[in-house]
């Protein structure tokens, strides 16, 4: 149902343009047809009126010349036709409302010219169908519709020289609503042609627009200068140029900031090394240990900042990695420094990736769980072409509103800020960047039983294991 609605609601430029064109075509055709019908009807009406007036005048003249009443009566009947009934009578018809409309008046005027002798005694009006006596002409107001209206007949009476009357009753043949289906073929053909031409030509017209959007969508801040193609109509070329200059400025800005941050982190190494060396000369063990811890923390910050800047900057070579072995190294390391971490990893699960940064990403996720949670469980599984590392802990979890924000650079959950081991707020940012860079996904959820669950999923190794390496 929704699909139908969406299908009927034009959303693309092509659909909109075709809709507009079709609506215009419909209106033009409808108005044209109506005008045509009105013109035709007017011409037919005028011709019929003239013909009627001439027949009435000639019959009146002819009957007027006949001497006897019986001859007149006979002649009148003889001159009757299917469309015009003629009667001879001694008396005038009674019509309440003579000459009710323009058609009657115009017919009357014409008859007066054709029959100058009878001009003073002409009665033109309507009588109801199958009732010759009288009709309510006022009900009929529209000349055109009268022509097709069969419930009233036009009655004309003319007095002869001897005072008797000729009654004419005109049976106007109803102009049957005439629709030629063949007439619809032309607009139909035009519709089809318009749709075809519009779809093809508009796709051609909007192609640069699509490419423009594609190029803008693919823009990657870390990659080398990329440009939106400058082609297509002038407006689009202008937009592309503007976009390109904007992209350049963005890249320049980011590059400058990155360089500044990298330089700062790099340059801090020398003074830190100095402090580290000097610290070794300190006799006071407590002081030395404390300073060492501070230095380690500073190192960690520099390390992760540089890593954050480096990850994604350029393609790193990919290799087949034994993920289980890597997880063992990471978890053993965490266990060695006193964390409660249990790993369940079946052997032989391989993925293709950049080993150093994959290890960094997984280390960040697992170390995070060890740092903020307890009783960490790491499980490695495979599901449909993906390997999945699930890291569960029994810690406090993360407030729902922070679940997405923890991936932002330098963002830290409030409770971890106050801790001395707060970290840099880059761990998960780096992890996500690496994992997504390998076509994977990382999701955070609070477990219903308490604690956090992190699921890292990445495509399994697609390259065949080379037996050639064995021998």
């Amino acid at each position, binding site marked *: 149902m929704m699909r139908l609605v969406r299908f009927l609601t034009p959303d693309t430029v092509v659909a909109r343009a075709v809709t507009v064109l079709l609506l215009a075509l419909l209106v033009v055709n409808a108005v044209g047809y109506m005008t045509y019908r009105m013109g035709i009807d007017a011409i037919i009406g005028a011709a019929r009126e003239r013909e009627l007036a001439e027949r009435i005048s000639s019959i009146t003249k002819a009957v007027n010349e006949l001497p006897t009443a019986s001859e007149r009566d006979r002649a009148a009947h003889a001159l009757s036709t299917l469309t015009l009934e003629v009667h001879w009578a001694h008396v005038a018809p009674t019509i309440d409302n003579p000459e009710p409309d323009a058609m009657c008046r115009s017919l009357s005027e014409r008859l007066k010219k054709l029959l100058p002798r009878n001009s003073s005694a002409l009665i033109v009006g309507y009588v109801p169908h199958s009732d010759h006596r009288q009709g309510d002409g006022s009900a009929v107001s529209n000349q055109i519709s009268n022509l097709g209206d069969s419930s009233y007949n036009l009655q004309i009476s003319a007095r002869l020289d001897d005072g008797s009357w000729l009654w004419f009753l005109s049976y106007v043949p109803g102009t049957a609503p005439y629709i030629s289906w063949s007439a619809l073929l032309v607009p139909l053909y035009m519709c089809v042609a318009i749709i075809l031409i519009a779809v093809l030509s508009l796709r051609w017209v909007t192609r640069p627009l699509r490419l423009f959007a594609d190029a803008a969508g693919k823009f990657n801040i870390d990659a080398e200068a990329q440009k939106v193609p400058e082609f297509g109509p002038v407006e689009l070329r202008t937009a592309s140029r503007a976009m390109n200059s904007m992209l350049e400025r963005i890249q320049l800005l980011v590059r400058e900031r990155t360089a500044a941050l990298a330089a700062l982190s790099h340059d801090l*190494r020398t003074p830190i090394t100095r402090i580290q060396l000097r610290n070794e000369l300190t006799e006071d063990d407590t002081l030395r240990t404390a300073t060492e811890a501070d230095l380690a923390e500073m190192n960690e910050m520099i390390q992760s900042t540089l890593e954050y800047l480096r990850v994604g900057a350029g393609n790193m070579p990919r290799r087949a990695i034994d993920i289980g*072995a890597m997880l*063992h190294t990471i978890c053993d390391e965490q266990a060695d420094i006193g964390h409660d971490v249990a790993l369940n990893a079946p052997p032989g699960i391989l993925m293709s990736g950049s080993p150093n940064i994959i290890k960094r990403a997984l280390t960040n996720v697992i170390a995070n769980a060890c740092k903020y949670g307890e009783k960490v469980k790491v499980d490695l599984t495979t599901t449909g072409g993906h390997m999945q590392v699930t890291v569960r802990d029994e810690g406090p979890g993360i407030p729902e509103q922070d679940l997405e924000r923890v991936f932002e650079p330098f963002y830290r959950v409030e409770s971890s800020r106050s801790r001395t081991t707060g970290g840099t707020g880059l761990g998960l940012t780096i992890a996500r960047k690496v994992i997504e860079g390998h076509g994977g996904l990382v999701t955070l959820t609070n477990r219903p039983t308490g604690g956090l669950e992190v699921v890292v999923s990445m495509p399994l190794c697609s390259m065949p294991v*080379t037996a050639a390496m064995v021998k």
Partner: protein
Amino acid sequence: MQIEATKNFVNDHGHIGVVDDDPQIRLLVTQYLRRHGFQVSAAGDAKGAMELLQATQVDLLILDVMLPGRSGLDLCREIRATLSLPVIMLTARGDEDDRIVGLEVGADDYVTKPFSPRELLARIRAVLRRIRGDDKPGSIERDDVVRFDGWILDLRRRELVSPSGTLVDLSTGEFDLLNAFIEHPNRILTRDALLEFAKARSAETTDRVIDVQVSRLRKKLAQESAERPLIKTVRGVGYMFAPGAHGP
């Protein structure tokens, strides 16, 4: 410092050349190494380093990658070409390229900046021990890669590749342990001996840690060599590494 330096038998430990452009670091490293019984000469750039090497006979050179003028890598390459002198490079931390290039131009080991002096000391001792204990004196050439039973251990990149071509991640301790086993195939290595090798990198290694690390290393090797354990336990003594026909 002087008192401490004289307290030790200076010449017993060796003569170390330190090349770093930062005068503070130069001074501090010099002081630290002297305190631990080394004779130390220092230089601030490549030119000074060459002069130093001509004037004195050093046993080991500590060389910073980033030097004003000629880079440490260049210098290392030249030293490698003319002298048989062990070199430890000081590289930027985590900069993979620096590290690999450093090892490729012939450095024997590397220490990442910022480094702890104890780590530097451990590396110096390890390199000196390796050189002195070598069966072929004067030759410090080692193969870049070692093959055993289809496995490949890349010593430059510190990587282990399985027979099926998969990278198998090792911790620093596991790598050093495996390296020690490979250097002494089919020989029983006591826990104490293994401890010495492991100490080269991490100072706080104990007896039990060796057992744990051997077990971890075994588990990783067992993934593709399960039918025949490469590392055998010699009850009450230690361990023995026994590669098959494809061993070194």
